[in-house]
């Protein structure tokens, strides 16, 4: 037995864990699952947020021209576009150059391009717009004008993508926050119930402590530690599969889409963050369980 207060707290916390292995294990698993899913979602979302700006530059647009358009027609369209006030730069790209750029951008996805017998891409004009306070309006206006020109097959701007992406991100974020919140609250409640169960299971013990003049903090502290222990163990359990998923994603996805964007090279940092989250959650659970017990 520890003859100091902290020795006593730790001995009782670990002893309590051993006395009730089943509820404590369930609690650890729930915390692990909650942390795993929540942090997986957070990492995924973080990755998307980091990657999206690289994929869609808001000041760029591509005007795809009709295949077989004559040189004169192509030059006419190019001149017209370059003459618009909000266009800073306009550059012609042959179908081969367009395909080459795609290959360069998606370097990890070579398989996609290998099966092509002929280049399906049309020639294009790559346009850079002047910086504006209302870039979306400028893009919208550019798109409308470009589409009205003869010889233009399609116009691709970041405007449609960024609006769609933002909408998708908002939906994802809302669903994710709801899911993560529900998971975290459920793990707090599970820890609270486990701690409460342990507390009333050891009623004889704390009744003795009341008689010998132990302060409430002394009586409650082992139960707080027991709860925190569950959170820390849950975090450690969540860390292994989470790290596995991160490593797998780094191998499967193109470098630009995962490792480079997320910058996750430090397993220790991930473990530390998980442990802090787990300990915080379980402390809240223990606090909830012990809020109104043992008062003089």
């Amino acid at each position, binding site marked *: *037995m520890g003859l100091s207060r902290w020795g006593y707290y730790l001995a009782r916390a670990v002893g309590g864990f051993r006395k009730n292995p089943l509820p404590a294990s369930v609690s650890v698993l729930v915390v692990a699952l909650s942390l795993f899913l929540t942090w997986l979602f957070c990492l995924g979302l973080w990755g998307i947020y980091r990657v999206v700006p690289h994929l869609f530059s808001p000041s760029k647009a591509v005007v795809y021209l009709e295949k077989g358009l004559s040189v004169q027609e192509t030059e006419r369209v190019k001149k017209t576009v370059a003459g618009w006030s909000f266009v800073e730069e306009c550059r012609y790209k042959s179908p081969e150059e367009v395909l080459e750029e795609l290959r360069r951008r998606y370097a990890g996805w070579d398989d996609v391009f290998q099966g092509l017998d002929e280049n399906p891409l049309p020639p294009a004009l790559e346009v850079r717009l002047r910086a504006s306070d209302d870039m979306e309006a400028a893009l919208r206006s550019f798109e409308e004008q470009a589409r009205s020109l003869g010889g233009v097959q399609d116009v691709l701007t970041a405007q449609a993508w960024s609006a769609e992406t933002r909408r998708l991100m908002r939906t994802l974020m809302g669903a994710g926050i709801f899911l993560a919140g529900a998971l975290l609250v459920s793990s707090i409640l599970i820890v609270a119930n486990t701690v409460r169960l342990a507390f009333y299971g050891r009623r004889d013990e704390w009744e*003795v402590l009341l008689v010998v*003049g132990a302060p409430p903090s002394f009586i409650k502290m082992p139960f707080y530690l027991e709860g925190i222990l569950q959170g820390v163990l849950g975090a450690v359990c969540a860390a292994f599969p989470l790290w596995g998923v991160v490593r797998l994603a780094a191998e499967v996805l193109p470098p630009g889409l995962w490792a480079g964007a997320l910058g996750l090279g430090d397993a220790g940092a991930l473990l530390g963050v998980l442990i802090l989250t787990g300990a915080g959650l379980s402390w809240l659970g223990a606090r909830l369980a012990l809020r109104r017990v043992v008062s003089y």
Partner: protein
Amino acid sequence: MASLPLIQCFHVAKSYVAGEDILRDANLQILKGEFLFLMGPSGAGKSTFLKMLLGLEAPTRGHILVDGRNIHRLSRKDIPAYRRTVGMVFQDFKLLPRDSVAYNVALPLVAAGRPPGLVRSKVKALLQFVGLEKKAGTPCCRLSGGEQQRVALARAVANDPWILLADEPTGNLDPCASAVVMELMKAVHDRGTTVVVATHDPSLLEHIPEARRVHIHEGVFYEEAEASSTVCASALGGPGWD
């Protein structure tokens, strides 16, 4: 020099069910260093009275003063410190059965935040006092009833309390073990502690014949000399108590 009153009870009443008083208008004064037997049949209110002295129960009416302080008006943060000035021994020992003898004795000292070195030396001395130093590491559940009560006694006096309360301390013991426990109580008393033993067993009185004897009858305290003539003990403290 006359001893000062350590415990004073004024018109104390206690009821768990309205209209059914366990104690009613009970008055008592216990002097510092006194050894007092509180006698009465089961259900007379002895245990309730001891619990009130420890601050585990509050009186329905009246006041209990210990060392001049109304213990039921103590602030929450002062209650643990007060309880460390009162040791209590129970009939059913109330030990942590799976924990060792030394652990049980150390518990009040650790709870009071005493330094580990002091805890160690104090536990050793206490176990020597109750004659269990060789069983320091034994789980309490492996001890006999008499030994368990000695552990409970060592735990009760660990913080050098002013008052030792014992609720039927020999109720579960054979006569030999009872004699040992009563000898230890006497030794605690000889060191200056005020001892209150609640019992329904008159044979215990033989161990300490000089002890004061108070009976509880129908919720009221009576001195033994007065018990036969049923003089109400509300006059025990004199008119100054009112």
